[in-house]
């Protein structure tokens, strides 16, 4: 299971990376915004994407839409971990096809719960 963590703050990337390692996911890579993440995703090999929203150049919502529009990536599970808390934004992310949405500040338990839930649902879909 290879996971890409996208956030413009290196501190938050380290936090998520640490939490994922605790959960048993040690194969992670990092990108600091959508425009660096997208080529990495396109070059293949990633099974899961965790992305922030508010980033320079290419925001997380644009990255999500680009992923869903790409035939190779369109079924990649995407979990948003962001401080964006407007209802309109959450609805927007849901309509764009996000698999999970976590608001910052979050806990280790929330991250685990949402990741488990995403996999449960994907398994159920077969």
């Amino acid at each position, binding site marked *: 299971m290879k996971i890409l963590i996208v*956030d413009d*703050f290196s*501190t*938050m990337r*380290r*936090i998520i990376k*640490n*939490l994922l390692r*605790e959960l048993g996911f040690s194969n992670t890579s990092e990108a600091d915004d959508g425009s660096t993440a997208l080529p990495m995703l396109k070059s293949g090999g990633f099974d899961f994407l965790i992305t922030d*929203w*508010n*980033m320079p150049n290419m*925001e*997380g*919502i644009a990255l999500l839409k680009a992923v869903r529009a790409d035939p190779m990536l369109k079924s990649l599970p995407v979990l948003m971990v*962001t*401080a*964006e*808390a*407007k*209802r*309109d*934004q*959450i*609805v*927007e992310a*849901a309509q764009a096809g996000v698999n999970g*949405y*976590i*608001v*910052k*500040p*979050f*806990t*280790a338990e*929330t991250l685990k719960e949402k990741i488990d839930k995403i996999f449960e649902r994907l398994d159920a879909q077969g």
Partner: protein
Amino acid sequence: MDNDEERLSLQLDLARRLVEQLEAGDRAGADESIRQLRLPYERELFEELGKLTRDLHEALNSFRGDSRLIELTRDEIPDAKERLNYVVSMTEQATHRTLNALDESMPIAESLHDRSATLHEQWSRFRNRELSVDEFRELARELDDFLTQSGQETERLKSLMSEILMAQDYQDLTGQIIRRVIRLVHEVEENLVGLIRLSSARMELPKVAKASPDETEASEIRGHGPIVPNTQDAGADVVSGQDDVDALLSSLGF
């Protein structure tokens, strides 16, 4: 050309008359001639002054109409102050959270260290066959206790470590807020430059930075950073936490 010549001969006549009047001691007549000589220049001056006044008025009016400076001063600066205050209290909380976890961790680590040192000493004596049977029983009991407790205590240490890890999320959250304030400072700067340009002698119309239309249009969807209490964020329709997000998503069929 004709006009200039006419004006010149008029001035010449007036000057000759002024000399005659001065020589004749006619003070009142001389004053009148001087006033007439000065007249065309005064008119020019007044016309120029009138034009300048009009330009200034127009420039000020257009600045007042375009400028975000008033809005910035009235709303956004106090808003930014509130955001920075929030940053101070967030960093304070994060530091306390970290230090509290450390305060609890240090005695646990020290006690683990001390007890293992004592046990190590006893163990060495046992290996050297220096322990009596009673002393060995005592050691076995102590070892038993230590193994049970150290399991629990290292578990507690691990959870305190992850508390310290999670406390570091303040850097991302406050960083987003500070970046937003930096953008505001930049906007104030641009507006002040516009104001200085306006008050400069060249009287250029100020080029004030305005939010571009597509920027305001898309602002609902663009990233804002964390919601800060007691600011303009208060008016936004926001979720109050993860439970709220989950409820909203489940209402959307998630």
